[in-house]
């Protein structure tokens, strides 16, 4: 679904990476890991189209639904209304929802398991539920690719596991390509099909969690962090 060759990312006077190669296929969960400053957010922003790539090629097959760390100002919307914004491209000039839109919204709410909270205000639900609501919004967009920027950052342990398990289920059941940036190594190893390890020195290293653990790449990656050289 996503294929990058010699992709250069960063900002005009601050190039972070000059040549990244990676691909993301449908039905798989990939966790993007890296230290602060390694360029995770920049990579995510580039893939989402918020900033332009500086060079190389980036092919994206289909649209992307995003879950970001922005808090927004949606506290006065109900969960249902917020998720319905995912239908933006499918509705007419005034954003009036048709029968099919309502169906998609209800299915999305069901898929993340918060259909019971549909009439609550966004400001009344917990952090974990809010994250699920945003995932439901991304589902309502009906995009083949979902990219999430640190979706578990502000969640407690239970909600972290729940969220990761939910994303894995969505990838398998609905064939979505799911890319998650995270700092949470344990859950990344448990739930991802592949890890992308991003660092200044080694660019992007991709592989199955088990093989990256076995051949010592993960250990090296995090040891280097302990030594403070990354």
């Amino acid at each position, binding site marked *: 679904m996503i294929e990058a060759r010699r992709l250069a990312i960063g900002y005009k006077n601050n190039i972070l990476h000059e040549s990244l190669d990676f691909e993301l296929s449908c039905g798989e969960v990939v966790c993007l890991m890296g230290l602060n400053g390694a360029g995770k957010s920049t990579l995510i922003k580039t893939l989402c189209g918020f900033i332009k790539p500086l060079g190389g090629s980036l092919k994206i097959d289909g649209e992307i639904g995003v879950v970001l760390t922005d808090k927004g*100002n949606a506290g006065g919307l109900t969960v249902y209304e917020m998720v319905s914004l995912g239908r933006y491209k499918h509705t007419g000039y005034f954003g009036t929802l048709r029968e099919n839109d309502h169906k998609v919204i209800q299915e999305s709410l069901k898929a993340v398991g918060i259909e019971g909270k549909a009439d609550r205000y966004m400001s009344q639900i917990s952090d974990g539920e809010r994250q699920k609501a945003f995932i439901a919004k991304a589902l309502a967009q009906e995009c083949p690719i979902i990219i999430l920027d640190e979706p578990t950052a502000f969640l407690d342990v239970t909600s972290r596991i729940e969220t990761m398990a939910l994303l894995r289920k969505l990838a398998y059941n609905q064939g979505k390509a799911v890319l998650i940036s995270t700092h949470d190594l344990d859950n990344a190893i448990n739930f991802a099909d592949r890890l992308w390890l991003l660092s200044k020195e080694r660019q992007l290293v991709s592989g199955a969690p088990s093989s990256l653990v076995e051949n010592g790449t993960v250990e090296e990656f995090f040891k280097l962090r302990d030594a403070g050289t990354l």
Partner: protein
Amino acid sequence: MNRRKNITLYCAAGAFLLALFLSNIFFGSVKIPLRDILAILSGNFEGRESWRHIVLETRLPQAVTALLAGSSLAVSGLMLQTLFKNPLAGPSILGISDGANLGVAVSMIYFATTSYITTIATAFAGAAVVLALILWFSSKLKNNVMLLIVGIMMGYLASSVISILNFKASSDKVHQYVLWGMGDFGNVSIEKLPYFAIIAIAGLIAAVLLIKPLNALLLGESYASNLGVNIKRSRLMILGCTGLLTATATAFCGPISFIGLAVPHIARLVLGSSNHQQLLPVTLITGSCIALLCNMLTLLPGSNGVLPLSAITPIVCAPVIIYVILNRKNIQYFN
């Protein structure tokens, strides 16, 4: 069930608006019997010509002006609050009204013009300059409180320039400007009314057409652009619409503070939602109601004349803002 609640709300708001509109026509500093007013309105009045003049050429245009100016300012405030993700934004807080004031001052004092087309054009230019500056600052300042303070500073700057202009001007021009500066929905005569109404209604229609992107912008610009909103274009259209509505209301009625800031809050509290599909129409109606109410309150001294409008709007609106700030923890849209 929700729909039924909304219909009840719209009916109540409509009835309230109608009652206020009629009160504005029935009551004034000159007492005219209700029966005669109805006769004047239906065109069968045979009595005093002065009464007909008061009702048809003073009270009626004044009520229509209040109705349109109130909704213009309120809708501007709502759009600014959504765009800047700041519930305390508003045309007067961000200095946009002051920009329009400056434009009017330049045309009244410097060009000594009485043509309202020139006045609107200069008011719009002033508002547009401040809007452009605010937009530029908003890309530099991520902190919303800082942006508000910059807006307040811009307001002061515009006021300083106005004072300097006044200092250099002759006293009769200053007097004219000071009168305008008190704010008055009665400034719009029956001849000017069509021009004011056409521009205001065009601005309000444009605002209604912006409901969809406004809703998406509640999630922040990144989410909105991912949903398919053309951020640059939407932002320009929202600001252009806000500038037009604020500048028109200011040019015709003088600077009217607080309505743009307070009314969107009243509308959200009554409606219990930030969804612009309902919030924008309710803000529009509430803006008209509050403006008509304020216009009524200027008559309080009775037959001894009328109070300046600029003294009334803060009395009605400021308590709303204080209430909202004190209760922000319990108000959904603040969290």
